[in-house]
């Protein structure tokens, strides 16, 4: 394992130190319990947005803290959901009197820890609501399973709800909007290579020289199946096909198309992929109104990509376009 780190169990702490050194004018960092918060939190009268999850997905979530997006983010250990005390502390730190929204990706650990944190927060008299993302069409869904994972839609939801919260919309409104975003978004991912967590030092799975893994998550979990390497056009079909069929996205729908790198994929390849996705959607009469291309929800150094489509309505577009000023997304300011 070769990584630019000092020690496997110091990675999260050291990266937080780097965040504070780089963005101390805009973010405050608490080390114990660990969370990153807007320097001007709590913002009086604004719904506070708290997200969190395992580390190793940067810029998500810490890189999305700032005006127009999250108020605070709780980083867990690499690929391990954070703990209720972090979330509770963050919740208190961002409570400006209008309530706090927890944005939770649907993983057993994240859900249980955020549940406990929400109970703790409510115990302190803070109004806490939760929105769950579960957009990964690679996962079979049923009443008896843990359901679909939350992946790419989380980024879009954090931006759009961030815009609404900045606009002083109520907790109920922001939560409802978040649920609408989740309901209208679908994702799927693939990997060319595994990733290696600092703590384990081993690849998360083994892939042959001519194999790719389809339907991966963002924690180095293996995917639904593996197959021979294919052209970018075929990979785009492989991912976007099930996404389009699942919602389904129909001719005439306006969408945000998000081509996300898993962390180790060169940007030039993401643009090749975007070109294929645009062609494919064009063929089906689906209209791309907005797009996002880059490494936003990653799995350490994994090579591969995910595609997320979000069916847009006017409100979503308005809050997507609204100013945002975070280390990871920045426009309009």
């Amino acid at each position, binding site marked *: 394992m070769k990584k630019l780190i000092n020690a496997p169990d110091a990675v999260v702490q050291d990266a937080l130190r780097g965040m504070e050194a780089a963005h101390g004018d805009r973010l405050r960092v608490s080390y114990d319990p660990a969370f990153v918060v807007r320097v001007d939190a709590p913002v009086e009268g604004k719904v506070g947005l708290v997200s969190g999850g395992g580390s190793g997905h940067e810029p998500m979530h810490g890189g999305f803290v700032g005006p127009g997006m999250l108020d605070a983010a709780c980083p*867990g250990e690499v690929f391990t959901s954070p*703990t209720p005390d972090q979330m509770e502390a963050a919740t208190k730190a961002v409570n400006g009197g209008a309530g706090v929204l927890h944005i939770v990706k649907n*993983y*057993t650990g994240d859900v*249980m820890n955020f549940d406990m944190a929400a109970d703790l927060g409510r115990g302190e008299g803070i109004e806490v609501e939760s929105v769950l993302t579960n957009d990964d069409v690679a996962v079979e869904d049923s009443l008896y399973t*843990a359901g679909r994972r939350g992946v790419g839609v989380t980024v879009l939801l954090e931006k759009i709800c961030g815009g609404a919260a900045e606009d002083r919309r109520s907790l109920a409104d922001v939560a409802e909007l978040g649920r609408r975003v989740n309901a209208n978004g679908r994702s799927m991912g693939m990997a060319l290579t595994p990733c290696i967590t600092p*703590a*384990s030092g081993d690849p998360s799975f083994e892939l042959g020289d001519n194999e790719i893994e389809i339907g991966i998550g963002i924690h180095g979990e293996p995917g639904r199946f593996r197959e021979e390497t294919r052209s970018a056009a075929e990979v785009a079909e492989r991912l976007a096909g099930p996404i389009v069929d699942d919602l389904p996205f129909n001719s005439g729908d306006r969408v945000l198309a998000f081509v996300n790198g898993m962390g180790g994929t060169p940007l030039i390849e993401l643009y090749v992929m975007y070109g294929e996705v645009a062609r494919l959607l064009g063929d089906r009469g689906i209209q791309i109104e907005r797009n996002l291309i880059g490494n936003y929800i990653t799995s350490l150094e994994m090579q591969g990509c995910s595609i997320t489509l979000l069916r847009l309505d006017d409100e979503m577009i308005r809050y997507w376009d609204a100013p945002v000023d975070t280390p990871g997304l920045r426009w309009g300011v």
Partner: protein
Amino acid sequence: MPVNRDTVLDWMRRFAGEMAEHRAELVRLDTAIGDGDHGTNMDRGMRKALERLDSADQADAGAVLKTVAMALVSTVGGAAGPLYGTLFLQMGGALAGRDEVDLDGYVEAWRKGLQGVQTRGKAEPGDKTMVDALVPAVDAMERAPDLDTALKEAVDAAERGTRDTIPMVARKGRASYLGERSRGHQDPGATSTYYLYRSAAEALGG
């Protein structure tokens, strides 16, 4: 051995030892069908638990388990943090304020702990989780004539229960994302639960 503050303290120390020793094995099991952190998580949590146990006197066995529970909840994260946290919290509640408990008291604590885990995680037997080690172990203890037998049978039952997770298709936790591909692998959480019973037998037995 009686089940009291000192023996339960010893149990937790041994369990921490098992988690350190089997850390890599649990990571490997979790890498196959999860995200490869179960060993790291449990080891980190139990090290923190020992720190806390060392730094303050514990009133009784219940207090010991609650201290462990809170340490796990605030340092483990993931699925295992809340689940093991809940297990120990419920068990600790059942043992609180009692100097020493007998077989019935001990089994009752496990029953409460198991209920807590199932309430939090909604897993049933057969879902390929730690519940598949817990349920047969608690059932076996309930049938046992005395504490020593109960401790031994729990280890055997948990071991069998853990092995039985191999052919299962996961329906809860991270392994469920793999669907059919989760078959053929042993569940990491059931495995750590098996070690929990093994350390209990050593600390509380004979």
